[in-house]
Structures are given as structure tokens and as C-alpha cells.
């Protein structure tokens, strides 16, 4: 249960000494709430809600909260706002779960607590004439104040007063809806309201964090997930777009009805070969001698979701094919005569500007991909409140992956260091940093700032870049400009290790690994092409030579020119669409040298 609600209500929020307030217990039982107010009323409660739907804190919205006979009860805007502030982002206790929602009463009775009024309900005052006038309900005044200071905080009216008296006013002042307190369906209505409007963390904790920007993104994702239209997920590299796609799939619709439905994940770059049709649509058995039938990715995702990661890397030819599938909702296996209707929702993700160049990405496909909307995942520097939780998780994960490691505590000054940095590589960079720290220091119990290679891990990022943070577009490349950068990069590579403790981690990610490997080798090759350029007075900037460059990268001095060209084609072929400069020229030379040669696919060397 990760849902914390604030209920502002004079009757149910009042405190009563000696546990005489069974009214609050009744309300909590009806909505299946666990009362965590901590006042006398909640301490005296004898009931136990077995599977609470939410943790609830009650507030009277008035002063004093505990009003004996003879005291005068007055409404209290400032005090109520202060209570909200204590459980809100940026001002809350660091361990507190922020409010998912506020439930607000309309009519608050004020005045003297007399023998008579106390006899009817302990701690309740006589009431003044204006209290019960819909035009001057204190709940509406409070609503306006809450909306003014906390515009992102969802507020619902929970009242037993007639809705029609205030429906225009509560909407105008920012409440999202109205639940009648005497409605037996109230718990179901509230559950739906929280799902739709509440600020809830991921209950499975796969996406870690409670920051406002993350919770708003998750709320958008839940809203978008309730229909089956395609969604485009955008966010910087390393921000966890694939986890958001998985979240969309899991939540499916309210109540998580996507359970058991397929979620197929693929890196779009691997669809850039002449095998993409069979990968996407499958292949009919006995299409060619020795060919077994195979189900394609789209068919495998039938009834569920197909997640196309790095959609910008999808070559134009595959884009056209995919567009047809989206339009027709039909696929035909390679070699088959009959087509099959499929029901697939396409979730795609990118960190680049797809609108930038229609020659690289088809606008009509883009429109189809974001038919159901675009989800924006915040960068880590915009959700720094989550760094603490993420850091703890990554340290525990790193310890688990490396048996025998001591349990590490992150010291406050090390945490400050993590919080100060802007993390241009986002969560992936934070994870790498903490895994690196644990792997290099398995025998320490405290991680101190000296254990964190933050600047070094951010290879080649200049101080000026750190200040402004990463650019939203421009790809994944970071530059290695200095000897220090290169040294750090090599050290980082050498310290990395893949532990086989959990093979499921690799499930569906081999495509990503292959693609990442290709791109890394391509960058090495680019450096080698520059390093081995033949310079002359006629051409001072130099001409590239693919044979010595490939030999340098592979370390194989006996490699022939034709084999070097084949190797280069296998390496750069799948990346053809994104190549430019020396790498593009190198591929053209290799194709000219070996027009037939090895296939461009299977790009592993």
C-alpha cells in the first residue's frame, strides 16, 4: 500500500479524548482506510482493516482539533495548509510518502462547544448560520487556498451535502470531483478517482521514486494505458523509458487487466536488415528447404504490447512496413498466403527529435505511433528527490550481484555528492557509478565521496556541459577529448563485469546488447579511421584507409583488405541509417571493394 490520503473534515477529523469518536472508525471501515493520524482518536481505535486501500491522515481544518466543552472552534486556513505542506514534495519529511490526494469536506461547523452540541457529537460546536450556507462553505474557501499553493495536488470533495448546490463552485475552484459520503459505492468511486487523478508511485517498485515529476508522469501513463491506442515515450538516454513502457503494459487498465498478456520488447535497430520482415511477421514452415516456421514479433505481441525501443534507429524501409501493419492491423508471415488480423498496441521510445528530419523518420508513422499520446519521462536532474531511493536500491542490487560483499551504507556527504551532480546519463549513469563503487570497494561498510567516481564516470563531459545538463536531442554520443577522459573510460570498461546471477535480467535485451556492441565498435573504428588517415600536402586533412583502421581495431595484423572490408560491412551495415562523416565514407569504400561479399546482417565480429 503506497497511497497516502489527507482527509480534511470537521466531523471525522476532530479529535476526542478517551476514544469516543467511533464515527471516524466507521468511515475508515467503509473506505477500508488505515487511520495513521496519530491523535487520541486513532490511538484508541480497536478496529483493524485487513487489506487497507490507503493510509489516511485526518485533519479537522479547524482549531482546536480537540475541543472540550466551553471552547470555541474556528476555521483555520493557515494551519491546514501547514499540515499539507508537511506531506508535500520539497517540504515533506524525507521518509514520508507524499499525499496522493486530498479529500475535502464542504461544511465546517464553528462556534462554542456547548453541553448540547457536545452531547450530540463530542467536540462539535453549536454551529453558526453562515456555516451551512452553500455560498460560504469553508470547504470552498479552503479548496481555493489549496489549489493556489499546491496546484498539482489532486483534491476531491467528500461530503454528505447536496452536490448540486456547489457543483459549479467546486469545479471552478479546482476540485476534480465529488463523492457523496453516504454513497455505498463510495469506496469504488474513490478507487477509480485515485487511479485516474492520484499521485501514486509504482506499486511494484520497478520504477523507483516518489518525486512529483515522476508521479505526474506515472499518472499520465496510467491514464494513457487505459485505452489501446499506440503511445510514444520520450525521455533522455538512461532515464528508464523501457521501464515506463513495462509500467504501461502492467497497469493496462484499472486493476491491471494486462496480466498474462504478452509484452514483447525489441530494439528497432535490429529490424534494419533484410531479415526484418521475418523478424516482424514470422516465417511460414517449409518456406525454403530446412526453414522451420517461426512466429514474428507482431504476432507474439497479439493481444498485448510490442515495445519498439530506440524507434529513431528504425530504417526507412522497416518504417514503411510497420506503417502498413498499423493501418491494416494485419500481418502475413513470410511465405504464407493468408494474412492474420492482430490486436497489438505499439509502445515506442526515443530520446531524439523524430520531427527533425522527415527523410530519416516518416511523419505519417510518427502520427500513428503517438495516436494515444506522448509520455514524457523526466530527467534525473528534474527528480533529484528520487536519488536517495535509487542510490539505496542500486547499492543493494550491486551487493546482491557480487556475493560476499559487505553491506554498504552511503554516508551523508557521499549522498550530498550524488544529489549535487546533474546526471546527464540519468539513472543508468547513477547505477553505473554505484555499481562501480561497490565493485571496487566490496570490503568497506561505508561509501564515502572518495569512492564515487562521478566526474570520471561521466566520460568527456566538460564542466560547462555539466552546468547546462544534457541536450534533449543529438544522440547518445559523449566525446573523449582528453587523456584523462580516455584513461577513465578504459578504467571503467575494465572494471565492468557481467554476473550471471540472474539470467532473466537478459531476457529480451540481447538485441540491445548487440546494438550497443555494434555502436561501440563503430566508435572505436571511427577513432581508428582518424588515427590512420593518410595525410599529404595535397590533402592535409587526410584520407581514410579502411584496411589499417580495421587492423588497428581488431589487433589482427594479418587481416587481408577484403576481409577487413567484409568485417566493416558487417559492423556498419545495421547502423547505415545513422552514419555520417568518416564512418559513412568507410562503408561506401567497403561496399565498393566487396559489392557482394558478406551479408550486412549478423553484425557481430
Amino acid at each position, binding site marked *: 500500500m503506497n497511497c497516502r490520503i489527507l482527509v480534511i473534515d470537521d466531523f471525522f477529523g476532530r479529535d476526542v479524548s478517551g476514544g469516543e469518536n467511533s464515527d471516524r472508525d*466507521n468511515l475508515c*471501515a467503509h473506505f477500508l482506510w488505515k487511520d495513521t493520524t496519530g491523535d487520541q482518536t486513532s490511538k484508541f481505535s480497536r478496529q483493524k482493516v485487513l487489506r487497507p486501500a490507503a493510509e489516511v491522515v485526518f485533519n479537522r481544518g479547524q482549531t482546536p482539533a480537540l475541543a472540550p466543552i466551553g471552547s470555541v472552534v474556528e476555521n483555520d486556513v493557515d494551519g491546514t495548509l501547514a499540515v499539507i505542506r508537511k506531506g508535500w514534495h520539497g517540504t515533506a519529511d524525507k521518509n514520508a510518502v507524499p499525499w496522493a490526494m486530498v479529500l475535502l469536506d464542504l461544511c465546517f461547523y464553528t462556534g462554542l462547544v456547548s453541553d448540547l452540541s457536545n452531547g450530540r457529537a463530542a467536540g462539535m460546536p453549536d454551529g453558526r448560520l453562515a456555516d451551512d450556507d452553500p455560498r460560504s462553505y469553508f470547504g470552498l474557501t479552503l479548496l481555493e487556498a489549496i489549489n493556489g499553493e499546491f496546484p498539482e495536488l489532486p483534491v476531491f470533495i467528500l461530503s*454528505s451535502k447536496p452536490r448540486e448546490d456547489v457543483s459549479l463552485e467546486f469545479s471552478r475552484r479546482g476540485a476534480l470531483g465529488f463523492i457523496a*459520503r*453516504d454513497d455505498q459505492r463510495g469506496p469504488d468511486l474513490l478507487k477509480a478517482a485515485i487511479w485516474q487523478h492520484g499521485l501514486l508511485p509504482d506499486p511494484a517498485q520497478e520504477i523507483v521514486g516518489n518525486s512529483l515529476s515522476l508521479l505526474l508522469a506515472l499518472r499520465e501513463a496510467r491514464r494513457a494505458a487505459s485505452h489501446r491506442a499506440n503511445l510514444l515515450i520520450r525521455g533522455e538516454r538512461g532515464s528508464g523509458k523501457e521501464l515506463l513502457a513495462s509500467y504501461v503494459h502492467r497497469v493496462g487498465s484499472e486493476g491491471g487487466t494486462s496480466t498474462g498478456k504478452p509484452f514483447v520488447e525489441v530494439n528497432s535497430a535490429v529490424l534494419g536488415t533484410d531479415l526484418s520482415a521475418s523478424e516482424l511477421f514470422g516465417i511460414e514452415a517449409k518456406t525454403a528447404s530446412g526453414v522451420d516456421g517461426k512466429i514474428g514479433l507482431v504476432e507474439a505481441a497479439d493481444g498485448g504490447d510490442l515495445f519498439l525501443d530506440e524507434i529513431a534507429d528504425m530504417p526507412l524501409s522497416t518504417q514503411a512496413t510497420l506503417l502498413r501493419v498499423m493501418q491494416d492491423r494485419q500481418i502475413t508471415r513470410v511465405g504464407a498466403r493468408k494474412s492474420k488480423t492482430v490486436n497489438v498496441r505499439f509502445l515506442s521510445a526515443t530520446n531524439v527529435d523524430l520531427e527533425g528530419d522527415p527523410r530519416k523518420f516518416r511523419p505519417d508513422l510518427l502520427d500513428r505511433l503517438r495516436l494515444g499520446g506522448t509520455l514524457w519521462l523526466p530527467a534525473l536532474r528534474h527528480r533529484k528527490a528520487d536519488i536517495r531511493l535509487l542510490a539505496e536500491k542500486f547499492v543493494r542490487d550491486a551487493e546482491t550481484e557480487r556475493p560476499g560483499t559487505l553491506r554498504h551504507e552511503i554516508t551523508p556527504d557521499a549522498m550530498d555528492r550524488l544529489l549535487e551532480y546533474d546526471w546527464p546519463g540519468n539513472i543508468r549513469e547513477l547505477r553505473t557509478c554505484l555499481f562501480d563503487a561497490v565493485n571496487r570497494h566490496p570490503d568497506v561498510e561505508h561509501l564515502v565521496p572518495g569512492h564515487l567516481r562521478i566526474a570520471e564516470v561521466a566520460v568527456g563531459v566538460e564542466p560547462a556541459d555539466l552546468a547546462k545538463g544534457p541536450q534533449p536531442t543529438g544522440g547518445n554520443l559523449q566525446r573523449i577529448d582528453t587523456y584523462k577522459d580516455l584513461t577513465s573510460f578504459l578504467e571503467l570498461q575494465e572494471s565492468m563485469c557481467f554476473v550471471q546471477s540472474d539470467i532473466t535480467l537478459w531476457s529480451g535485451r540481447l538485441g540491445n546488447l548487440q546494438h550497443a556492441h555494434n555502436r561501440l565498435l563503430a566508435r572505436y573504428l571511427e577513432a581508428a579511421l582518424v588515427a590512420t588517415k593518410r595525410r599529404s600536402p595535397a590533402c592535409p586533412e587526410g584520407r581514410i584507409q579502411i584496411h589499417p583502421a580495421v587492423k588497428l581495431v581488431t589487433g589482427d595484423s594479418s587481416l587481408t583488405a577484403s576481409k577487413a572490408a567484409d568485417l566493416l560491412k558487417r559492423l556498419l551495415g545495421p547502423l547505415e541509417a545513422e552514419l555520417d562523416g568518416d564512418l559513412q565514407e568507410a562503408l561506401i569504400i567497403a561496399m565498393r571493394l566487396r559489392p557482394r561479399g558478406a551479408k550486412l546482417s549478423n553484425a557481430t565480429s
Partner: protein
Amino acid sequence: MQWSGRRAELSHDLLKNRIFPGIFKLGKVLHGEVEDSNFVTHFAVINIEEIERLCIELELLSNGAEYALSPSRYFEIPPLSGLDKESKDRFAQAIHANWVGQAKLQVRLCRLNESLSGVRAITSMWRDEAKSDLLQVTINAALLLQELRRLSSEVSDLASLPPYGRAK
């Protein structure tokens, strides 16, 4: 306290804030979603007493409704109070008789009293029957909720009568 204020108090404070949540809790306890070992017994005494008190109060309200809600009361306040006594009495009587007929007051009051009888029948059944029979308690709770909803609706209906209320 005026009729409308008393009605609002009974409807809001007693029926909707206390009695309905109490019955809802009983439902959750009976379904095993909430544990509160003494609640079924507590409900049979405290909550049933509260409902019986509500019935008494609503009966008083019902008895006073004809006078309290009649437009003839406009003759008690300016400017109509300034008319001579004979004219006042004649007009007030005529307007009252017309209103009683138009508003079908007797039909409404009759329905309200039927609802009160329905609620009372359940509460007396509750007192008479074995309180340990959870099946019977569950049935009674459902019946009670149904009758109280009917009662709540009849009270609102009465309060909505013109000229003071807003006709539905």
C-alpha cells in the same frame, strides 16, 4: 430551531454522518474485511438506539411539516403581515389549502410515515431476534439500509417543496 435547520441537522449529522457509515462498517465487518470483535453487539445496542432516536425526531418533523412549510407563513412577516386580520386569515387559508392540494402534502407525509414504519419494523426485529445469528444480522442490515435510503429520500422530497425548497 427552524424546521429546515432541524431537518438538515438530522439528515446531515445523524443520518449521513453517523447512521449510514455505521451500517457500512457493519457490512465490512460481516464480510470479514474489517475486524472489530464487539462491533456487531455494539451496533445492535448503540446504533439501533440512534436509529430509533432518528425515527422519533423525524416523526416530530413530519407532524410539524404542514405548518412549517406552508406558504401561508408569508402572512406572518412583512409586507403581508400588515394586512387586516380578516383578509389575512381568508387569504392564508385559501393559499394554504391550495398549496396542500398542489403539493400533494398528505401523500408525501403518508409515504414518509410508511418509511418510518418500515425502519421501525427492522429495528424492532433486530432487538427481538438472536443477535448471534450473523446471517440474520446480514439480512437485517441490508433491509435496514434499504429502508433508511427510502426514508432519506422521502425527507429530501418533503424539504424540496416550494416555496422554501426547490421542487424536484
